[in-house]
């Protein structure tokens, strides 16, 4: 991927209308470059840049907002906060939402003692999402779900992570391709 324009002329997007007008062109660029398309799941902004799409800061913020927090996710976060506050009160737990860094460390340990002791974060994550864990520690599972939702639907990884995926140093085991219907 030497060509930072994604194999075409730069596409300058300054308004939402520009974005709508160029969607098909941009999508075709990604469809034509499968490796670049996969990077959309690592950081869409960097991938758009590599595809030759130049976004204004306002549009970047718009893209981040829409991709990270789609309306349904925002609704779910609100529902989760409602449930959590009710359980905090019922159980006498003192914590505010969103959780502080200290509370994020403390609470899972309080409600499911072993949670933070699992040295393998991948295994811990799988375990927290398992049905058995959810049944055994419903509050801990709720906290984990809330924590995950708060990170947004898409996580915009920093540059060094993006570059690692771009160079092939890192890869998605499960992801074969992303195509857009245009």
């Amino acid at each position, binding site marked *: 991927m030497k060509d930072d324009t994604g194999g075409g002329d730069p596409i300058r997007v300054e308004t*939402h209308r520009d*974005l*709508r007008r160029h*969607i*098909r062109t941009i*999508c075709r660029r990604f469809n034509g470059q499968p490796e670049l398309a996969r990077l*959309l*799941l*690592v950081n869409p902004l960097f991938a758009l840049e590599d595809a030759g799409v130049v976004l204004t800061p306002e549009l970047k913020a718009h893209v981040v907002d*829409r*991709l990270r*927090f*789609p*309306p*349904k*996710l*925002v609704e*779910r976060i609100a529902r989760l906060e409602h449930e959590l506050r009710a359980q905090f009160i019922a159980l006498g737990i003192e914590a505010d939402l969103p959780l502080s860094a200290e509370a994020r460390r403390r609470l899972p340990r309080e409600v499911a003692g072993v949670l933070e002791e699992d040295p393998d*974060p*991948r295994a811990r*994550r*799988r375990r927290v*999402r398992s049905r058995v864990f959810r049944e055994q520690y419903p509050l801990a599972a709720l906290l984990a779900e809330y924590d*995950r*939702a708060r*990170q*947004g*639907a*898409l*996580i915009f*990884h920093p540059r060094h*992570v993006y570059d690692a995926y771009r160079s092939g140093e*890192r*890869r*998605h*085991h*499960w*992801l*074969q*391709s*992303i*195509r*857009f*219907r*245009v």
Partner: protein
Amino acid sequence: MSLTSCYRYVLELPLATLNDFLRAAFSESDGAASQQWSGVPVGGHLADVSVRPEDVVTHPPSLALTPVDLAATLHLAMRVEVEVTDIPDLDVIVYGITFDLPGTFQKDASVPPKLMLRFPGVTAAALNLVVSGGAITLTPELVEPAIHAMYDADPALGHTVRTGQPWVDLDTGSPTTVMVTIDIYDDEPGSPGFRGAISVTVDSATQITVHMPGHFKVQGVSKTYMNTDMTVDVKVPVQQSDGEIRVRLSAVTASDVSVTFATPSAYDAAAAPVMASEVAARISARPDVVQAIPTSAEVKALIEDRIVAMAGTLEFPLFTPPAPASGDQIDLTTFVPATVAQQVLALQIEPLGDTTPCDTPDVFARTTGFSIAVAAVKVRQVLDGLESDNEGSVREMQGHDVTLSRLDLSLADPGEHGQPGGHVWVDGTATASVDCWADPEVDFSGPVTLVPALDPDGTITVTADAGTFTADDPCCADVDPQDIADVIEGDSRAVGRMPTDFSGVGQLTLTVDACDISRAGIVIHGGLAVVTNRQLHAGAARRRAYWFTEPAAGG
């Protein structure tokens, strides 16, 4: 060989499990494998013979599979008691025996059918019989009749008078002559004027002591020196050899005889040796008492004969499946047995009825517990259901509606797709709905393993574990692969339901713990614990009866 041959399921029981079942069966029914025979000729005598299994803990029966299909050898330890009826005072002779019973697994004709272990055509040569024990218990009752007979045959033993015997009067110190009268009593107990009777005690397997009550009188011309009751104890060596017990009266010497006078006197020291020599001379003049008993060869022949006779009627039900209670239960009654590689008993269940060639099942069982293989065609049905249930489904994933437009699941061997173990390969397409943008289609693929479970009603289920469905970066999610994994892991699928209403003297508690995957199908491994009814009554009831077994030993 193949995983499931031309059957939908193959249940494999390794040798260790078969032995567990056998031992539970023996433990459960002490008398079932026991037999008794009366009036059996043995070495010129007649005997009552009984056999029963030794304690299963100290002498566990063991089964070995032999190279011929469905052939097995049962190694048993039993206790044989031989009571020689025409030697009434001979205690029961106890032998320990070990032997092999060559047998065969046979599906019987009952409804529902059972798998029996039977032993047709057993010959003495095939038994490899080893006999131990057989020691004769030396008892007073065995010897006393001969001693009484000896007394009766020698009147001089009962009453002896010696005149002119040299003597020394200790009051004067002068030598003189006396008349010595020795009486030994062996009166009939309870008879009028009873004075005493000879008795015998057993000191050891090689010695008895004969106790003889009597009277001793020494009389001079004008003076009686001794006039006292006495007891004479005679130690007699006993020799046991194959076929006889010999009480060696001929070996008795004066040193074996001790005399105790009831009324002590100064003459005891002089009188006792005289008395001992007299008694020893009398007894050693008698012939040895010999009791003939069956020889070891005669007993071995007898036992072989009895075992061969017993083997023809001996049988053990080893698999007693009930008819399926409902259509979704695995029909274990369709089993076709086979033994494979001298390692497992394979019960091939539910013929596929298609063109799949029948051959020998693989050995897929572990060395303990049980394993059940499910043919690929059956697993395919499960995977097809998973595919059809999920294809076209719409789920919300992190705020986006995602349509799982395609889901293909296939069994894969170890080594395929770069995976070390067998797995289900997942290949699919999901379409996300994104605001203000064209909908992206995401193609994904990855390996999935299966986690088995056994429900209380006997349903075997497998749940997908998409643990490797991840990105390299474990801490965060983008379009979270775990969301797709959740779709796959979301529900467990039944691959079969085992009947749970097995009857019999024992019950099994089954657990499942692992699932091997290959293109040929899946193998679910589990453990089992044999719980006998006796244990059940003593403790908490266990829920899963699976089979089993009641030695219907003949007789």
